[in-house]
């Protein structure tokens, strides 16, 4: 009798919870890692680096909840505290194992589960590709073959969340979020936390490229990765990158070997930034934030035909050494700002067809400040959209530009057309000869 009562009460509670919910249910749909002879090679061989990666993934997971549960008015303290917490986690090696997003972002997992499916699945892809490079069971001349297999299975096994293999130049234009009311919120309002992400997004490609420089032999990879890790604490954390560094800049050799994986990498990193922008924006409800997140996820996902753009990017520093941190890596100008600038120029004729030259100059000055982290003297507070509207209240907004979950189609089409005109006929980035294995001296005893 008591059990029947408890059963009835339990079901009643469930139904009540269902009817009270204003979020729809989502399937869990977790997918396990791809099996291969290389599995967990990075963990076993480069445990110290895995620990740092775990710290960065703590940042990525936790930041979702921090932003979603923080009032913008409290941002300064929250930003400083979170920055300190992440540095402590990384520096003091708080976890040996890379966490899933839900482990440190449980609230966001309930609001936008598909975002975490997307991030976790792509993190698994990165784990796979690090493992392939670290594994001595995969011969140097087979690295590409195994990486290609990992890419193929990454795209096939979790189709609705796999990131595109097209360069960020294409996917950012598809997402068309520059004039959304949240764009640049994260970098402008949470500059310290944002720069933690950009340190992480420097470190990841630096590690790939260090593996590319050192070959399979024992000692070489260990030495190269240690040099990168030392560099991070000695120089990079003290003078953090002022932009998101792209794979073409810091891992050109790896990007030549597997442009698909390199582009997936950039597309995920940009998704992190856009998700943080959306979650820190207070003008929308959680439901609206989720609608916009899912729109961006879909826009930047793999779409049939993306393969033809895979090698459409340039290599500004083809011989870069990831164990060095020259001025160009730390500054705000680079491949990312070039993409943003191009997109801005492609949109402006639609929004401001009759803009006077002096206004254009002021607009571009604001644009460049908005692209940099933090707030600068003379910078208008808020998103890029807020700044533009304040300067030109009569600016024409495209349909879909402001609404959550809607794509400004005209803007997107104009930008994709602009890319086609500028870069459509650019030569493919050349493949890399993997028949010759590089070697690097091991660490001195």
């Amino acid at each position, binding site marked *: 009798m008591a*059990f029947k009562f*408890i*059963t009835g009460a*339990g079901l009643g509670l*469930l139904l009540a*919870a*269902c009817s*009270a*919910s*204003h*979020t*729809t*249910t*989502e*399937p*869990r*749909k*977790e*997918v*396990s*890692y791809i099996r291969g002879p290389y*599995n*967990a090679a990075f*963990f*076993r061989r480069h445990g110290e680096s895995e620990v740092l990666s*775990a710290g960065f993934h*703590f940042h990525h997971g936790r930041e979702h*909840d921090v932003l979603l*549960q923080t009032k913008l008015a409290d941002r300064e303290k929250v930003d400083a505290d979170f920055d300190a917490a992440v540095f402590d*986690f990384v520096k003091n090696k*708080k*976890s*040996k*194992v*890379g*966490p*899933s997003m*839900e*482990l440190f972002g*449980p*609230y966001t*997992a*309930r*609001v936008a*589960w598909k975002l975490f499916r997307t991030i976790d699945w792509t993190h698994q892809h990165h*784990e796979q590709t690090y493992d392939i490079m670290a594994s001595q069971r995969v011969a140097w001349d087979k690295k590409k073959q195994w990486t290609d297999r990992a890419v193929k299975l990454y795209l096939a*096994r979790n189709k609705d969340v796999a990131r595109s293999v097209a360069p960020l130049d294409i996917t950012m234009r598809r997402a068309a979020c520059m004039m959304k009311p949240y764009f640049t919120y994260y970098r402008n309002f949470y500059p310290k936390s944002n720069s933690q992400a950009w340190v992480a997004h420097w470190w990841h490609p630096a590690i790939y490229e260090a593996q590319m420089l050192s070959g399979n032999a024992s000692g070489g990879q260990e030495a190269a990765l240690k040099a990168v890790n030392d560099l991070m604490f000695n120089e990079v954390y003290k003078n953090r990158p002022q932009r998101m560094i792209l794979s073409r800049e810091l891992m050109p050799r790896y990007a030549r070997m597997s442009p698909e994986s390199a582009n997936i990498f950039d597309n995920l990193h940009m998704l992190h930034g856009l998700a943080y922008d959306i979650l820190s924006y207070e003008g929308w409800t*959680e439901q609206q934030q989720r609608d916009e997140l899912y729109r961006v996820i879909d826009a930047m996902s793999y779409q049939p035909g993306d393969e033809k753009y895979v090698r459409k990017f340039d290599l500004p520093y083809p011989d870069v050494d990831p164990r060095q941190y020259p001025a160009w890596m730390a500054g705000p100008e680079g491949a990312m700002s070039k993409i943003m600038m191009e997109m801005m120029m492609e949109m402006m004729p639609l929004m401001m067809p009759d803009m006077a030259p002096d206004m254009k100059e002021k607009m571009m000055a604001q644009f460049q400040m908005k692209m940099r982290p933090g707030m600068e003297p003379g910078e208008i507070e808020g998103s890029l959209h807020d700044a533009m509207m304040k300067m030109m209240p009569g600016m024409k907004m495209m349909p879909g530009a402001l609404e959550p979950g809607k794509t400004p189609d005209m803007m997107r089409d104009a930008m994709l057309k602009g890319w086609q005109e500028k870069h459509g006929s650019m030569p493919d980035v050349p493949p890399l000869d993997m028949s010759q294995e590089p070697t690097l001296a091991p660490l001195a005893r």
Partner: protein
Amino acid sequence: MNKSITLRGLLLAALCLLGLAPLAHAQSDQINLDAGLPTRLEDAYPTAYGNRELQLPVRYQRSRQGDNLVQYTPTLEFGPFRNTQLAVAVPVYSGNGDRSGSGNVQVSGLYNFNTEGKYLPAVALAGTLTLPTGLRSAGTDYNGRFILTKSFLGTLNRLHLNLAYFHNSQPGVQAEGGQLKEERLDRFALLVGYSTRIAPQSSLVVDFVREQRRFRGEMGSSVEAGIRRQMNPRMVLSAGAAAGLGTDADKFTATLGLQHAF
């Protein structure tokens, strides 16, 4: 004599787990609860699609009468479809307690309907078919379990509810202390529990079990608690203990568990 056998069994099991640890490199998850690892509480989430996992819970159980039983339950768990988990287990018992059922083959499944939302809990249905391949077993038994998992306070504090039903297709009679004890045909158990992350690689699980015991007229309650630790990307170790309340429940149980994806 029996105590020393049991202790030796537990020691061997612990050494087995420690010995396997450096070899493990597969995928598990410290916050994904499976029954027996280390408490009987299960959450509403299945193993990931495409995953394969070896599990080895070793459970020491001391009854009110002073009997000792060690249960080794090697299990192969896998995710053949999305949101679906299947498992095959063959529990083997040692000690001077009632070893009925040792060597039975158990085939289990779990289907998860949804991930939890802001208000809606994750819901799953699970079931097990027990084939009478073991000691003093007759008839195919089955059980079903209704599972809810819900987090609260915007954190990873999770509440779980398991409502389990067991069917014994051929209930028997057992003589004990000059009395005949009759097995139940059907029985229920209710588990209410809580789990949370207590460190980056460790989680805590505590629960309360109220159950109709195997023999008619016996009801049991116990409090269980355990720790699950993610040892590497592919392996979770767990340890737990339970104390029985009242006169019918087992006096004490202790569990060590290994999950190792491959």
